[in-house]
């Protein structure tokens, strides 16, 4: 006989979330959920990564430290790039473009890229990027010339990645704050260049 529960619709997902919190009851410390949400909003922001990039564009010694140890260099600016994991920064050049994905879940360097956007977490991006990076990037608005190799980084382990984009031409006079405004989350992931 069929399990009678299989004929019933799942409860709405909001109701399931609330049910879990209620069942946990006093095991959820007061304000824990609210504090965690606030903490995420404060610490997980792609604008942290944008500031790291702007510093690297402005300061060659910092750039070298960033490429040698992404987490330690980001910490100089007060950012905790990753928690138990560690950060490897991927340098774009005239002949190489880097792009990040996590095919098995959606791992991201939260401290410098922020909590990832829905498109990064979508089955479409996760399935397609490793197999047809040029075609997918073109669809997403980035047409790479043939002379530029594309290297896809699958975040399958505990290493976290951030792309260091090329400094745009004509920005020689800009200070770090202005440079940081030019850096998007899409550039840090590598779907923009």
């Amino acid at each position: 006989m069929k399990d009678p529960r299989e004929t019933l619709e799942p409860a709405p997902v909001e109701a399931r979330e609330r049910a879990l919190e209620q069942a946990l009851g006093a095991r959820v410390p007061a304000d824990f959920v609210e504090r965690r949400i606030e903490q995420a909003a404060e610490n997980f922001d792609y604008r942290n990564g944008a500031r790291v990039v702007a510093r690297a564009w402005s300061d060659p010694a910092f750039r070298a430290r960033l490429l040698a140890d992404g987490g330690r260099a980001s910490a100089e600016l007060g950012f905790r790039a990753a928690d138990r994991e560690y950060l490897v920064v991927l340098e774009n050049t005239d002949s190489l473009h880097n792009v990040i994905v996590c095919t098995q879940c959606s791992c991201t360097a939260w401290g410098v890229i922020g909590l990832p956007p829905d498109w990064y977490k979508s089955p479409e991006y996760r399935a397609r990027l490793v197999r047809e990076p040029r075609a997918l990037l073109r669809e997403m608005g980035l047409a790479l010339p043939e002379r530029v190799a594309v290297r896809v980084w699958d975040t399958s382990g505990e290493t976290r990645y951030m792309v260091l984009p090329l400094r745009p031409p004509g920005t020689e006079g800009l200070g770090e704050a202005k440079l940081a405004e030019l850096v998007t989350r899409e550039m840090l992931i590598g779907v923009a260049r």
Partner: protein
Amino acid sequence: MERSSPTAALPRILARFGYFEGMDGIHDLGGMSGFGPVEVEPDEPTFHRRWEARAFALNALGIRVLAAYNVHEYRHAVERMAPAHYLAASYYERWLTGIATLLVEKGVVSLAELEARAGGRFPLSQPAAEVKPDGVVIVTAAEPRFAVGDRVAVRDFRPAGHTRAPRYARGKRGVVAGVGRAFELPDLAGHALPAPAETTYRVEFPARELWADAAEAGASVVVDLWSSYLEPAP
């Protein structure tokens, strides 16, 4: 739940010989065909609904405060979702399902109470396979076995439980592009088994090695792989 019928026992018997494709799961999406365009939402907020943010917070509770499970068990709990549910669920519904599955399995809350409070079904993930350490670990090595430039091959295996070796890379040959830090082997930690730290490697595969005649020109993929997944290649 043991049954004596030969049919019911078959998966376990096959698993012993490495034949059961237990966790070549739906989550392991890299390279699968049939997926359409990537939809980008302009100015997307971090959370679309309040419950998503709350589910996000509950995972930190389960791991750090209740210490009911570790991050590897969490990932595996999401991977164990029924395939149709996995693909239909939003990202944070997958979080919620993984968290609730573990809290039920660990006896922290009961499914009956969750469904009574939710006023309907609360679909959880499927049970985990039984994993034995000697079926997983090949070379546990905290010290690096390989150096940048070394040619390596990913072992070809069909794990019954959790792994972070993507299906598309298994059996393929690549070159070590970077030597990473040592981390506990997820194949053990994902089943709450003691997991020694192993060196990880960033291994680069030319697109042709992974995708054969479907490969794009001038493309490669770097995969972060644990020592036990790798063997030297000629």
